[in-house]
């Protein structure tokens, strides 16, 4: 079949079951946009308002579906605008494929108009990148790109295509399978390692599971629940692990890390055997490394060998896909219970409840609190919603107080902590529910009706606020909740605690978000009073289209518990 390079790009996307792409046109990608014109019945193109929005939207799509989210941008500034999103996807292991136009191959390297060294710029932040200068390369490179993005430890891949390659015609045929000599991720655990791990777990007095994003990527949530139940092992979740377990599950003890729950942090150091799965011992989780898990033998399961012994020395490293490893462990693990150990977590929770949670989620006076807003939202959504959180205090509050009944329901920027992530990522998540990749079975009405709620700050929402226009154009029913404290709250909290309350550049004068939203043709409302909060949330959830709710919350509220930078997990502060 004779095709132009641009048509081949469209056909390749269809071969990869791509249903939705997020993009923005420009000179060097115009031939592809021209080809798209004939494919609009098969591929939904979402016109974002800034390429960063496209990259984060692709991330949202990738995280919900497990299939690469796709974004499309022009050369030079279009490509460089993707950079933050690509770096974010790299840090959080999110499958995305970015396609960028490039100046014609005879101009590459000559400082041509809108030429940027996209290959050089993105090499450190992509799992793989490739520049196509010959149309004949398109089928093979696309099949490789999608394969690499979604297998092993997922990540961003970038394909740069010169304009002449987009125009050239060639005989198109798509490879049936990807053949690569290099890149063979190990997916099955070594049986001996599993045996040793099971032995440790079976003998443990205070075993402890730390579950991360890898469990969700491997779709191993049910297997992990089975393992925990069989072994009677308490489970704590990392920021990206939130929602692996239903919040209410008795073995789920909470959220780990700097602002995680009290028990999961402080009791880490009492565990005698730790099973860490699909997590990477980030510094926000471990606190001061030298005093982390002093008494524990550690079993670490990860598909990326480079994560094993990277930050924490472990007894039993296991390179494998989390699902395979957990299933293998399930066969070896003995039925046990550790009720005294689990009681310790409950005791810690009671203390945290008294000192922090009650006052946060059910205050009787003063301004609305962040936790309270999230708590009330829960009551209405019953934990069914997908929560997409931005970065800051509201993010930690969302991770702490949002409740979940389904896995993979909490999306946020963890590794990079990218402000401005949530709004476009929520958009991508909503598209994932409405238009999953071809061939992926959706839950039908359940998934069409599922709410996607973006929880963001008054600072963060102003980064990528332009995407409100995209929501309006597509009439995409994403709900946006601003927890508005008129501060760059998380930075202010640090200034209060560690910089003698010198509030340098953290007090911000915000626009009237309702007016802004209405200017973008969104429905919007502001709420300040406790009595009006429930009503406002209900109206938001009832509304049909996109909706913005500006909730004015207490200005100088702090997120607790907290492990200060450089402190040990057992120095977690409750106030």
């Amino acid at each position, binding site marked *: 079949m004779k095709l132009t390079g641009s048509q081949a790009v469209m056909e390749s996307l269809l071969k990869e079951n791509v249903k939705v792409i997020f993009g923005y046109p420009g000179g060097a990608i115009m031939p592809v946009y021209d080809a798209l014109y004939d494919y609009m019945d098969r591929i939904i193109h979402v016109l974002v308002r800034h390429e960063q929005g496209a990259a984060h939207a692709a991330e949202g799509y990738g995280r919900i579906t497990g299939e690469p989210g796709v974004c499309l941008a022009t050369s030079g500034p279009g490509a460089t605008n993707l950079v933050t999103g690509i770096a974010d996807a790299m840090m959080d292991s999110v499958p995305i494929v970015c396609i960028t136009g490039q100046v014609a191959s005879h101009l590459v390297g000559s400082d041509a108009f809108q030429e940027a060294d996209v290959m050089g710029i993105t090499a450190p932040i992509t799992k793989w990148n490739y520049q196509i200068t010959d149309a004949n390369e398109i089928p093979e490179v696309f099949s490789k790109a999608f394969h690499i993005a979604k297998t092993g430890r997922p990540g961003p891949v970038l394909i740069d295509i010169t304009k002449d390659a987009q125009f050239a015609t060639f005989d198109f045929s798509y490879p049936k399978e990807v053949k690569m000599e*290099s*890149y063979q991720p190990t997916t099955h655990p070594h049986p001996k390692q599993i045996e040793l791990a099971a032995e440790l777990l079976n003998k443990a007095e205070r075993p402890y599971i730390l579950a991360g994003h890898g469990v969700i990527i491997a779709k191993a949530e049910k297997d992990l629940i089975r393992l925990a139940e069989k072994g009677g092992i308490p489970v704590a979740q990392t920021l990206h692990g939130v929602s692996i377990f239903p919040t209410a599950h008795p073995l789920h003890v909470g959220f780990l890390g700097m602002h995680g729950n009290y028990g999961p942090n402080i009791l880490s150091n009492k565990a005698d055997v730790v099973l860490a799965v699909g997590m990477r011992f980030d510094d926000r989780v471990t606190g001061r490394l030298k005093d982390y898990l002093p008494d524990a033998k550690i079993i670490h399961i990860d598909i990326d060998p480079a994560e094993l*012994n990277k930050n924490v020395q472990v007894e039993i490293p296991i390179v494998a896909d989390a699902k395979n490893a957990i299933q293998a462990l399930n066969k070896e693990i003995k039925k046990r219970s550790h009720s005294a150990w689990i009681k310790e977590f409950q005791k810690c929770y009671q203390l945290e409840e008294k000192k922090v949670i009650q006052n946060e989620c059910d205050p009787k006076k003063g301004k609305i609190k962040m936790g309270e807003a999230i708590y009330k939202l829960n009551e209405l959504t019953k934990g069914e919603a997908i929560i997409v959180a931005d970065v800051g205090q509201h993010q930690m509050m969302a991770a702490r107080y949002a409740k979940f009944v389904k896995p993979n329901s909490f999306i946020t920027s963890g590794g990079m902590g990218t402000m401005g992530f949530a709004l476009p990522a929520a958009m991508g998540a909503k598209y994932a529910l409405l238009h999953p990749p071809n061939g992926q079975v959706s839950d039908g009405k359940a998934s069409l009706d599922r709410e996607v709620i973006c929880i963001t700050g008054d600072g963060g929402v102003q980064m990528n606020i332009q995407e409100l226009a995209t929501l309006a154009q597509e009439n995409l029913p994403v709900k946006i909740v601003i927890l508005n404290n008129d501060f760059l709250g998380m930075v202010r909290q640090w200034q209060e605690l560690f910089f003698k309350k010198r509030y340098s550049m953290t007090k911000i004068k915000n626009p009237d978000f309702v007016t802004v939203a209405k200017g973008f043709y969104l429905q919007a409302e502001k709420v300040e009073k406790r009595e009006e909060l429930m009503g406002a949330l209900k109206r938001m959830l009832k509304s049909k289209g996109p909706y913005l709710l500006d909730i004015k919350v207490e200005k100088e509220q702090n997120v607790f518990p907290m492990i200060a930078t450089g402190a040990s997990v057992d120095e977690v502060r409750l106030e």
Partner: protein
Amino acid sequence: MKQIYTITAFAENRPGVLYRIADLFLRRKVNIESLTVSEIEHTGQSRFTILVHAEPLLVEKLVKQLYRIIEITKVIDSLDQSLIIKEIALIKITAKNLERRREIEQLVHLANGKIAAVNQSYLVVEKTGTEEEIDSLHELLKPFGIKEFVRSGRIVVFK
């Protein structure tokens, strides 16, 4: 304690692989003491020989992170005792006077080197050997006035 490691990496011969390797060493702030790259005949594979001076634990991490580069097929880190190591050096010396030339030639001969080129005004000495052998010949030749001194960086085969 820091040690000399030779990291041998095999990769598909494609543009950009060296860039990613170099970037990794940059991120980890490990200086590359020497680097040689060549294609392994008929295989479409390149062989990178990278000399670093680093802590064992860091080398272990670097090796694993190198595997993240898609094109990389194999990485081996070795200490000198498990390798046959060779390097080549070219040393250019001005020598117009016949007697000096003779002296140089003698030294080079004793050191198992070769004269790679001559003309009226200079000599080029070629020496293949271990890094120490090259160093010592370099020292011996210094008094004659070295114009250029260039070494290839080590290549190794495994014992």
